[in-house]
């Protein structure tokens, strides 16, 4: 079984400040890791994913995340946030079974960017 823990339910930050959203996962097998963003009244948009290779993954909108296998973490970072980054962020895990597989999501982190 897999599980995802997002340690912060809300993260307030000023515009142009850096931010880190934390994510830890639990799994008995190798996993794929994802960060999704959800704007109000919308579906989920993929920010970035880790499937294999380099542990530092760059995504859209200036976000990046680092996969740390020993700490079972996949924290999301952005060096300078913008008001438009205000949204709900979800970390998710999946494992590949030879066919497309389900995603297991964390409970989300609300990023609130203010002036």
């Amino acid at each position, binding site marked *: 079984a897999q599980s*995802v823990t997002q340690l912060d339910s809300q993260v307030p930050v000023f515009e142009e400040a850096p931010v880190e959203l934390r994510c830890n996962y639990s799994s008995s097998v190798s996993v*794929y890791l994802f960060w*999704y963003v959800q704007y109000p009244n*919308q*579906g*989920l*948009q*993929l920010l970035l*994913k880790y*499937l294999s290779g380099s542990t530092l993954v760059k995504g859209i909108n200036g976000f990046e995340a680092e996969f740390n296998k020993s700490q079972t973490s996949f924290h999301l970072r952005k060096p300078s946030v913008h008001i438009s980054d205000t949204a709900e962020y*979800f970390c*998710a895990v*999946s494992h*590949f079974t030879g*066919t*497309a*597989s*389900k*995603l*297991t*999501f*964390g*409970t*989300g982190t609300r990023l609130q960017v203010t002036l």
Partner: protein
Amino acid sequence: DAGVTQSPTHLIKTRGQQVTLRCSPKSGHDTVSWYQQALGQGPQFIFQYYEEEERQRGNFPDRFSGHQFPNYSSELNVNALLLGDSALYLCASTWTGTYNEQFFGPGTRLTVL
């Protein structure tokens, strides 16, 4: 490319009723998954369809059922609605084989009164 589309956008039902939600996958995709997102929670996997068959299922009761059509579109049916079924229902599509990103639709907001 229209991406993943879902209908209706919003729906209001009363307890005990039945509801059908619809999803059209992104062009070229053959696998459809459904997720339930309760208010303030992360999405929970309901089930996944491929080649018109349910391939995986999450921890949801039999009141939740689905179907996939030959054109890969899908329906989610929920019988005997409960207040707790109120949620955003998300459809995601991908193509099978090597692992690929799941693309999400905008969701259907179901309110059960």
